[in-house]
């Protein structure tokens, strides 16, 4: 197996073009597990750790451009304010050692439906910038996941960055695991509220072949909040509305039974997480208003 070590982004893209079968590796928290279990035997590994520009994040107006090599630990420590949903999800990734090495781009590259970063990326409408020697393109997160452990990358492309809007309102993330730390998600849910635009974003993890949004639930909730004037008044959301939101999130999922949990439990827990996270996000919004007044 070849081990390619480009020292610049241009070199990395050239290496990927020359070796389309090369698997990019940054923290190695996912790739190395697959190799150690002998599940994959790629023709080459493309080590991106020398490409220092990937390890930067930067503000770009209302957005954050998160380099592919930024670790979960840095997201938790440096980006909790502008990217609260992603930071909450990052906190649930593996152990401290794994968070010190693992990256959001690694989650995207593996495209496991259980990746913890996916739900907040979906809920916040994140964009994925991918590049090759042919050029650069931008994909919406929801278009990036194409199947179980499959994504929209062409063989010669690498993930360059994830671009996210700085939070325009409360964001929440919740994840079910059967122990209280270091666990792969049984089901996960993210919500992002944008009170200015009057929109709701959602993301579901581990409950379908790919991470996915609950579009119907988003539209329904945003519409009902508008219809009741709640975006303006920030009054209490009726229980019936919260419940219906949970039901619609549940209906957006299509989980399976596996060793980590049953499909029935996944559906049930999504409805509960959707209700609870909406409640917390709405409470945050109400608190913001109280603070402002």
């Amino acid at each position, binding site marked *: 197996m070849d081990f390619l070590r480009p020292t610049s982004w241009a070199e990395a893209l050239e290496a990927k073009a020359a070796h389309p079968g090369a698997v990019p590796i940054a923290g190695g928290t996912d790739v190395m*597990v697959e190799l*150690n*279990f*002998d599940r994959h035997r790629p023709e080459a590994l493309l080590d991106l750790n020398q490409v220092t520009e990937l390890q930067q994040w930067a503000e770009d107006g209302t957005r954050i451009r998160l380099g592919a090599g930024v670790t979960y630990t840095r997201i938790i420590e440096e980006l909790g304010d502008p990217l609260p949903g992603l930071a*909450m999800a990052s*906190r*649930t990734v593996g152990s401290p050692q794994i968070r010190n090495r693992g990256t959001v781009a690694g989650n995207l590259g593996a495209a496991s439906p259980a990746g913890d970063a996916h739900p907040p990326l979906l809920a916040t409408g994140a964009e994925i910038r991918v590049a090759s020697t042919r050029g650069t393109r931008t994909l919406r997160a929801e278009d990036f996941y194409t199947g179980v452990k499959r994504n929209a990358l062409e063989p010669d492309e690498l993930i360059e960055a994830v671009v996210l809007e700085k939070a325009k309102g409360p964001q*929440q*993330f*919740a*994840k*079910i*695991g*059967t*122990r*209280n*730390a*270091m*666990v*792969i*998600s*049984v089901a996960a849910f993210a919500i992002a509220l944008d009170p200015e635009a009057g929109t709701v974003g959602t993301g579901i993890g581990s409950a379908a072949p790919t991470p996915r949004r609950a579009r119907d639930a988003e539209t329904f909730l945003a519409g009902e909040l508008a219809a009741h004037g709640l975006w303006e008044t920030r009054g209490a959301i009726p229980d019936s509305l919260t419940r219906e939101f949970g039901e619609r999130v549940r209906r957006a999922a299509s989980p399976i039974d596996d*060793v*980590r*949990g*049953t499909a*029935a*439990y996944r559906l*049930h*827990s999504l409805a*509960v*997480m959707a209700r*609870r996270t909406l*409640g*917390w996000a709405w409470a945050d919004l109400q608190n913001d208003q109280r603070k402002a007044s």
Partner: protein
Amino acid sequence: MSQMSTRTKQPVGAPTSATNTESGRIGDSPLRPDGTLKVTGEFAYASDLWMDDMIWGVTLRSPHPHARIRSIDIGPALATPGVYAVLTADDIPGRNAVGLEFDDQPALATGVVRYQGEPVALVAADHPEIARQAAKKVVVDYELLPVVSDSRAALEPDSPKVHDGGNLVRHLKIRKGDQSVKAPVVVSTDFEVGMQDQAFLGPESGLAVPAEDGGVDLYVATQWLHVDQKQICNVLGLPPEKVRLTLAGVGGAFGGREDLSMHVHACLLAMHTGKPVKMVYNREESFFGHVHRHPARMRFEYGAQPDGRLVYGKAEIIFDGGAYASSTAAVVGNGGTLGMGPYVFPSVTVDCYGVYTNNPPCGAMRGFGCVQAAFAHESLMDELADAVGASRIGVRELNGMTEGAENITGQVIDSAAPVAELIRKVAELPLPPADTGSDLRSMPGGVANTTHGEGVRRGVGYAVTYKNIGFSEGFDDYSTARVRLEVVNHEPVATVHTAAAEVGQGLITIEQQIARTELGVQRVVVHPKDTSVGSGGSTSASRQTYVTGGAVKAACEAVRRTVLARAARTLGAEDLVLDGGKVVSRSGEVLADLVDVLGEVPVEETVEWRHRPTEAIDPETGQGNAHVQYAFSAHRAVVDVDVELGLVKVVALDTAQDVGRALNPAAVIGQIQGGSAQGMGLALMEEIIVSDGHIRNPSFTDYLIPTILDMPPMQIEVLEYADPHAPYGVRGVGEPPTISSGPAVAAAIRQATGLPLRRVPIRPEHIAGLVE
């Protein structure tokens, strides 16, 4: 020790004598010789063994739980460059049969495979990767056979047979008292326990070195060197003096290393190739490479007076032993004789079965048959309390054994049996605050942020259990110790040599403490554990401090007698003791330096030491003095349960345990903490999920064990009621906490949720009400 001279050279990572000069007699907690090394990552585990000319062995395993082997073609594998050998059952020079109690298991499958993961062929190559790739080229033609996967159905007459003799390994019967007695209050329950794994962190590994005398030296992480040696000798067709074992660094055992894993395979490859052969399982292979805790299906019924006093107990327990017997018969022995718990029953009916299936083989694991039954008897005690309107503490105090009580096999408990005191003690410990604060880490679900208090209910549960210590039912349970006292560099030095395995529990430290106490010297060298001294018995059944401790004590006493006789002759004095490297009169007067008394002539004694004999039980009534010692413990668990999502946070797990006498208090606490975590793990998350004979979660990604964020702080009450029959009064410590902690956690969850929850591990979907 002279037998070791046949070895040509030692591998890197082979154990060396423990020679630290810490002080510390019995009752102290000296620093362990392996402690700093383990914390700093410098300890040499068996997987670190190395010889420059070694090659690597791998095992080809059956992908099927039950199949006939039509043919095996090793040609393509053997032709792979870098491969030294490919071996099958045809290459076994001796008897192709191993097993702890019955040798019913082939070292390499012959004719048929009976479980997924059964070893079929071995490959040795100059690189592990080459060996793995070559193993994939071994062509095995399998004809699939019907899979026996249901332990109850396996006992039906029309079930396919796993072995020619049928599917019953053992049926234990207890019939005590009036078998037709009725009671005004009757409670009953069915209970099921899933398959737990020992989940030791150091995978199976060792290094076999062919020796010039035609024998083999095996360095291996194991639990019982001499029972390994016996089995390896059978397979290799060699006498014991040609098969020498040395204990390499062990990364946990918990019963999972009592059976052979790679031991005989590495020896076969080494003998065949003439080269040192190393084998190290990876984590996935480890799940197939050792036995697990028996899953159990149980049906319990208690009859009682209206005040809660027990009239009778009935139990049917079925242990799924999997494809080979391993220690199933002894697990049945424990489950049957101890499975009603530490209570007094005037009448008892027990039927306990161990069965063969095509599931993964099950055998020894910490708690050994008592763990499973404890979930049933403790949940039923709670039901009994509720049925008669008594407190859950009270019903246990009322029925709990006391010293002098008769257990269900008719044996009189002839040392402390403080059941009532233990349960009272845990009940009286301070409870954690009702409000655990807003830190997510204190919530069910932790930082995964599933609740900020919504759906969370508090529950408290109690359990009290007991366990036999040492081997039972007439087994000749002994240990051997060789102790030598000599002058080294003008200083008296004791050397202790036993074959008793240090698996992480701290036995080496205990051996040093005993020698310091008995011989009054500071420097105690512990020789590497190997087969050049007699058997130490198994590091299991919580027995090593008792039995090997007893042997070391007895050997030290024999040495002391010889030394003091020598001193008495020289000094013309009687009634002498050894203390501080001096020969001292009973009144404390220093009469001579030990160094001078010893001079150039070392004193060495070897003692084979036995505890009081036990008896086989009557095959029809189950009556008899089956066990030598009993250890009692109680736990109180406090849990917060998110009843909507089914997630659990154990808030407190407090315990009281009688340890007889704590020879090393820090080690005692460590055993209680670790054992409690392991029991809690079974209640909450630890299960090998098997469907149709296939393991579905052979990884630490999906076989979950508690992390530090799952384990609460513990309040631990250690009682020391010395057992007058045991050396220093010790009582085994390692297993009891694993038995009582899980049932207490399960009881707390039942209390929080109001659900019956008759299966462990309790999964979120059970609490959320999404499973029948």
